[in-house]
């Protein structure tokens, strides 16, 4: 068997973060007029820096309870911050009167149900397989 060269290992290791970063999917209600958003928009929305969709509807953030593994992954990979730091930032955002804090749910099914019921909601899930009717993944430009 051919052994991996050092060069191949370096390429593989450097590709690693690119393949895993952003593995989660950002989902919205199917009636949401946005089909494509920038990664900067997603970051600003989930940090409370942007509180409206481009059509001026208030963004409703759905998140997971603390300790939910997907929350930690999303916080680190998409927002570049620890989940607790994100939580602390949201306390600031809500107390400054900028926006209400995100709704938090115990699992992905509850999150999907919330987005189904709220056309202005945004959330993230681990994968889009079996995404119920009425929801869709939104394309995120790097």
């Amino acid at each position, binding site marked *: 068997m051919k052994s991996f060269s050092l060069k191949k290992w370096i390429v593989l290791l450097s590709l690693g973060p690119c393949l895993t970063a952003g593995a989660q999917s950002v989902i919205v209600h199917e009636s949401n007029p946005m089909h494509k958003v920038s990664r900067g928009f997603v970051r*600003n929305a989930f940090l409370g820096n*942007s509180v*409206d969709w481009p059509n001026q509807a208030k963004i409703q953030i759905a998140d997971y309870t603390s300790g939910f593994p997907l929350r930690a992954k999303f916080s680190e990979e998409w927002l570049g911050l620890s989940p607790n*730091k994100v939580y602390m930032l949201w306390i600031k955002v809500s107390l*400054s009167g900028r926006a209400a804090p995100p709704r938090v749910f115990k699992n992905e099914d509850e999150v999907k149900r919330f987005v189904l019921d709220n056309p202005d909601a945004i959330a993230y899930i681990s994968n889009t397989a079996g995404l119920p009717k009425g929801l869709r993944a939104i394309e995120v430009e790097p």
Partner: protein
Amino acid sequence: MAINLLLTTTFLFLGLSLCTFAQAEEKRIDWYGYAQTDLSTTDEPEQAKGFRLSRVNLIGDFVPASRVRFLGDIEFEDGADHSVDRLQGTIKLSRAFLEYTFFSQLRLRAGKILTPFGLYNEVHDFTATYFSLEVPRIYKPHAFFNGLQKQRIFAKYSTGVEGFGTFDLGSDGAQLDYAVTISNGRGETLSGGDINGTPGTSLRAVYRPGGGSPWQFGASAYQDRNHEGIGGTSDDPEQTYALDVQFETSKLQIQCESALGRFSAPSGRRHTALLSYGQVAYTFFDVLTPYIQHSVERYDLRDSEGQHQETRVGTAWNFAPGFFLKGEARFFAGELQEQDINYHAYFLSAAIAF
């Protein structure tokens, strides 16, 4: 007069908008808030010691339609026993405003608001939102002159109108926030009107670079005719300008703010006061954050008297989601009008956000 007309028109407009949209769309309401209690000891005779229920705040955030929002913030502050025959502490409506969004670049608020000033005035005195136990000294009232009431160098609250918004500067997430307020300024009648008929104005701008940058840069300005001037001069024209810089990652956090306040002294001479602080905090295990904060104040840049320095050293422990414990030591050294003021103070604080 002009401010009253502006307020009335804005309220009418927002009220009509609310009625129109509320019929058509689903209403949404969120309740959240916080509570904090402190224990302190100090060798300064005039400082409060012992247990203190600092505050309990309940915020109602009502969104009757996509562009309209009402926020009310009820606060119980600094009280031990609050019964009908023994009133202690304060219950007040800290904030109450109607908000209308034209676009994300322009929103309008009318009512009682927290003046958008500096990093912390709008987050409203909740210990979990800053590193030290209380807001930095820039935000606190100061005894600039002996025998006169302590005052801030800006109005903490404003009754009036605020225009604010956010400009997206690129797909990397860079943003520019701004906020402009026109209000009664400091000095209101018992029924809430402007006592001297001259509005207070404020401006704040914040720049956040994109690409997940940990930096943030801000500038604030406030001016009014302070009815009970800092130096005791009635309707004194006072101005304050401030700059702030923040570097914030999950672990390391650095913040610096400086404010210049201009006001008349009791002698009539104009004073320029400089109030600054810097603080560094580092978070271990995502929950334990030791911090150090150093404040420097000069109550008149042309006079070496009236200099204060305070160092706060402490640790914040976010031991469960929404629960916070803090321990802090304060070392204050200064002198005001030939009186030395030196004290140490030690605090423990427990807080909850819900």
